[in-house]
């Protein structure tokens, strides 16, 4: 049985199945004259949830955009699943994009399509499934992120902020990616919705075996979901578990993890 699916059934040669999911070495990015990342190193292991924190304007979102290939770095290498993103063929480049799902800050759903069509976009583009199976898989994803099925017929403008994020997550999961990129997934949600999202994320991560790269400000989300946390400071990364980071002497990290808000969140 030979499949003619446009979705490559096989991982392209050179795929690293056991090593780190993402490894960034010596990354330099600039915005005009300003250096955002100054020889930044970062490694995300398979199957871990990595949280990235940092002050406003420290370049967290730019880092995410650079890793998913929306932005070219000035220097340094980014390897995803063992492939150097700067030197891959077009085919492998598309394969890499399919192996990663991205949830943008406000969901970034296509406003002219229903939620169901939004989830089906990547499936229609990259697979040759029958329309029926495509629709069913989209419904499975919607149920997976905890939205009622009648949401599928709605347009993004008819949803609340929290529902848009979940719908965006369903679209990010459409192709069963290995890596999930999340940009501030709980920002702007009420504490109950944010809690719900944390549980959902942890749950999906363990049942689907995802590697998660998450930019966030939310100390509760960090505590609930992440295995390790990276702090973006002055263009570089300091990585460790929350407990390790709390011992770090850097004043910003001290303020962040041992400030009043964080102590309250971490004390529980």
């Amino acid at each position, binding site marked *: 049985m030979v499949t003619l*699916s446009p979705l490559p059934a096989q991982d392209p040669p050179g795929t690293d199945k056991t090593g780190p999911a993402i490894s960034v070495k010596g990354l330099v990015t600039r915005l005009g004259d300003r250096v955002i990342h100054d020889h930044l190193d970062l490694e995300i292991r398979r199957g871990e949830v990595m949280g990235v924190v940092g002050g406003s304007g420290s370049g967290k979102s730019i880092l995410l955009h650079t890793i998913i290939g929306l932005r070219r770095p000035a220097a340094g290498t980014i390897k995803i699943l063992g492939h150097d993103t700067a030197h891959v063929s077009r085919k492998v480049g598309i394969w890499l994009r399919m192996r990663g799902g991205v949830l943008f800050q406000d969901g970034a759903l296509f*406003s002219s399509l229903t939620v169901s069509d939004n989830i089906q976009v990547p499936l229609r583009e990259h697979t040759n*499934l029958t329309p029926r*199976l495509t629709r069913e898989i989209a419904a499975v994803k919607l149920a997976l992120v905890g939205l009622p099925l009648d949401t*599928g017929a709605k347009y993004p403008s008819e949803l609340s902020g929290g529902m848009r994020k979940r719908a965006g997550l369903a679209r990010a999961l459409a192709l069963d990616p290995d890596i999930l990129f999340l940009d501030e997934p709980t920002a702007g949600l009420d504490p109950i919705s944010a809690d719900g999202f944390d549980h959902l994320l942890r749950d999906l991560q363990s049942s689907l075996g995802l590697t998660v790269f998450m930019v966030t400000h939310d100390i509760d989300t960090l505590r609930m979901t992440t295995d390790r946390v990276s702090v973006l400071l002055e263009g570089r990364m300091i990585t460790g578990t929350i407990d390790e980071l709390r011992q770090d002497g850097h004043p910003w990290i001290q303020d962040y993890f041992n400030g009043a808000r964080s102590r309250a969140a971490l004390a529980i």
Partner: protein
Amino acid sequence: MPDDLASSLHAGWLRCTQQGRRLELRCGGDWILAHATPLDRQLARLKPRDIDSVRILLDDLDRLDTAGAWLILRSARVLEQAGLKVELADVPERYAPLLDKIHVDCPAFAGFGKRKPVEVATHGYMAFAERVGRGFCHAMSQGARLLSFFGVVCQETATVIVHPSRLRLATFVTQIEQTGLNALPVLGLLTFLIGVVLAFQGASQLTHFGAEILTVNLVSIAVLRELGGMIAAISVAGRSGSAFTAEIGSMKVNQELDAMRAIGLNVIEVLVLPRVLGLMITLPLLTIFANAMGLLGGALMCDFALGIPIPQFLEQLRGVMGGWQPWLGVIKAPVFAFLISMVGCFEGLRVENNATSVGRLTTQSVVESIFLIIVADAIFSVIFSMMDI
């Protein structure tokens, strides 16, 4: 090992064996999205006969993702609904959580993502009548809304006339620059070429009668009465009317209009009035410029092609330009400007919260304003002929 053979070893497979009244389905290999189509087809061919129970064995699975899990669970559900006893056996521990997470509700999935269709007749006289009726109601309600918008704008204009300090001077001047000054090159070229073409075509007909000199009358009357003003208005509708809709529409999508209202700004006063008043000042000026360029084109063409030198052209022109003649185009311009800017802003304010509506309403705004320009022009013709000018 050849490549396709290697992939076929990994591809998901399904083996059926029947033992008495029990069917054993053995799933193995990669049950992933990339193999979902052939697996789906194979499962669809499954027509159980003479059996009363099914065992689905999963211990040969190499990989399983949500698509594969869905296929397995959906088949199990379908077989159960056919009255069989279905059992999942030898589930590898690492896939148990995934299989638990997949929610199976086949009947609900069948109608997934479909909106309830509006009931309409699709053929015959009824369909035609329904279309006409819908179209009429739509046109009427659109007209009523435009009229009420017209009322609001008039009211705000009156306020600004009483309190001139309420006019946003900076926006007003910017609008004049963008809709007027920046339109000059395109408009100038267009009307210049129209003058050239008109002179050339007119002359080639009029020489048959030995009346080349009347080419001057043709060009000047056509340009001054109709073409200059129309070309200016239509090009402004395309350039600026569409820009009004797109600008105001994107602001609306971005919730900027809500923010303005919340801050206590009057949207009509801040966004609509400077555009309407600005365009009512620029379009007459653009029309004068367009007229001049059209006459220039005609004059040069007469000089080169017909041997009517410029002084003679001007002499003949003076004979034509009696009374109201030179101003008939310019008089119409403020009305055209008002129509263009009103429709542009009105459609912009109607934009809904999605990207397509910006495009749709921008198109609609240009089409509507050009339509209204031509209707208004026809009305003007009737009025002018009644006044004998």
